[in-house]
């Protein structure tokens, strides 16, 4: 259901802060222990989640999430495990959760069947990294039927004509790509996100969530001051990849997510 997302963003607007939506590859460090990582992030102040389906050829992802995907796949994760993790995360944390995937696994299962599975698992939305608005209609229709929102992207390169098409498709939120390039840490804060949010605002009140290249609480805070939500991925996945076991990964995540959560309040 997309309603929990809508509620989250309106509550955050009332509270003068942005929602923190951490990304984590499903099935890390193992399929059985995956839920403990999401639980730790929930305790530390995450408002919702992006559950990432590990993919063998992730075009929009930098080296950290690529490596995480490879490790998750060899640990036995994949589409089936990810949908299980989604169900467990929604069931135990009650937080709005979206699935993040690439288009081919959705096509392989069949768009309708995939939408059924996400709905049955309690997902609020779906993000498909290589699905621009031009190809989105058949996907959006299938998910809409089950009250699941198909998230669409706006990038610094997106033209006004394209922006209008994205908004006309009525996504549950717009994924504002904060920086050119794939996912991963940046040393400098993005200079794009404020302008991007402003461009969306001129046409629509739809929530804008900033992601890509946000890896420190300072960068997250800058994004939180203008956007409705912030996605942090690589910085958290790196903690998990560097940990020796699930317990220490959860501990590292608790600390990191706590830092990001504190950065969500606007000045």
């Amino acid at each position, binding site marked *: 259901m997309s309603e929990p997302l809508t509620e989250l963003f309106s509550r955050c607007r009332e509270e003068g802060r942005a929602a923190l939506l951490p990304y984590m590859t499903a099935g890390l460090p193992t399929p059985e222990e995956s839920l403990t990582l999401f639980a730790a992030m929930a305790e530390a102040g995450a408002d919702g989640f992006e559950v990432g389906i590990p*993919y*063998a*050829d992730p*075009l*929009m992802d*930098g*080296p950290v999430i*690529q490596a995480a995907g490879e490790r998750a*796949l060899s640990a036995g994760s*994949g*589409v*089936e495990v990810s949908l299980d993790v989604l169900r467990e995360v929604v069931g135990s944390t009650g937080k709005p959760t979206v699935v993040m995937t*690439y*288009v*081919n*696994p*959705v*096509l*392989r*299962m069949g768009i309708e069947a995939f939408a059924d599975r996400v709905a049955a698992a309690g997902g609020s939305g779906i993000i498909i*990294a*290589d*699905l*621009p*608005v*031009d*190809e989105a209609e058949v996907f959006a229709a299938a998910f809409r039927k089950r009250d699941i929102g198909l998230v*669409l*992207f*706006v*990038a*610094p*390169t*997106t*033209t006004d004509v*394209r922006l209008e098409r994205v908004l006309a498709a009525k996504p549950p939120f717009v994924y504002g*790509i904060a920086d*050119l*390039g*794939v996912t991963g840490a940046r040393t400098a804060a993005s200079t794009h996100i404020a302008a991007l949010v402003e461009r969306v605002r001129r046409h629509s009140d739809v929530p804008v969530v900033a992601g890509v290249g946000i890896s420190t609480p300072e960068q997250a805070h800058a994004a939180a001051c203008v956007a409705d939500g912030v996605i942090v991925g690589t910085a958290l996945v790196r903690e998990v990849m560097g940990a020796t076991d699930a317990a220490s990964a959860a501990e590292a995540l608790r600390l990191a997510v706590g830092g990001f959560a504190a950065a969500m309040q606007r000045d």
Partner: protein
Amino acid sequence: MRLDKPDTQGRFAQFGGQFAPETLMPALEELETEFTKAWADPGFHDELNSLLRDFVGRPTPVYRAARLSAQYGIELYLKREDLAHTGAHKINNTIGQALLTKRMGKPRVIAETGAGQHGVATATACALLGQECVVYMGEKDIERQALNVHRMRMLGTEVRPVTSGAGTLKDAVSAAMRDWVASVDGTHYIIGSVVGPHPFPWMVRELQKVIGEELETQMDGSAPERPQPDVIVACVGGGSNAMGIFYPYAGSDVDLVGVEAAGYGLESGQHGASLVAGSPGVIHGSMTYLLQDDQGQILEAHSISAGLDYPGVGPEHAYFKDTGLVRYASVTDEEALEAVYLLASTEGIIPALESAHGLAWIIKEAPSLQGKVVVLNLSGRGDKDVELIVEQS
């Protein structure tokens, strides 16, 4: 029916399209607009054609392989793309795209390469036009095609090793696309085959169809020594040389045969035969046939030939397969290796391992080709493979 152009969604029936990150979409739109303009501009064709003639050496000859013809009872002709500058058909595409890059005012070019032929051809075009060039190449391919790595560096190109995945062509394409997502404002991605999101498959086909158009004039049936072809054979990895020679003939009564890499054999699961043994899905921005598992994860391909070691294929080939305009077959690493030696020792031509796949199919099928005029697109020369072939034998 052959399509002049994909539809407004960039599709050949259900194949093709634009499954690309939003960041790249404006660049793809710009590319379609700019290429459409350039392709309608006689000035662009003049510039391209004079480079193809004086720099590349086109038209490439058609050679009758007399000894092989006698040996196998067929009339075998070779379209000599191996004689094009840099040693393969790849240069037809890179000169065109490098000229387009200049028109778009972008100073930097990136490319991927498998066997290194597209990398060398891109490096060459960039040297010619004074463009900065970075080529992504899988580390396994850097090892097996060392000669081409040296050539690219001599031409002033930076070769960046790709360590993700199996370190082959698929990973190099992904790495180039990731670079492009970050650098799109001042960079053009010269993709090396008829793959990727629209407009690439269409644009690369337009730039490669010169091969088939030349053949139509060279073998027009106007004299006994220039008969019209009955069968045209080409190897298919991404499929650019095959598309280049097939496209002008698609829909005619000439039998068109694309030969994919069967690697260790189709039954081994280790091959590059996406059309023969794959299923439809999306890879590198395009709906096409690909090698994937039951959860939609893309599988690693295998071929002795780096240029055919790719789990996808151009979407127009997928369309040709489903409409029956072209038939597709496959031959193994071993059969291709034998064909290299056969052509070398019988005709004095060392073919690229990729092109040898086409010859291997012809030899295997010779009994059904008796007396027919068969044209093989000899897409590249084999110097780059000599070391590998000697090690394998």
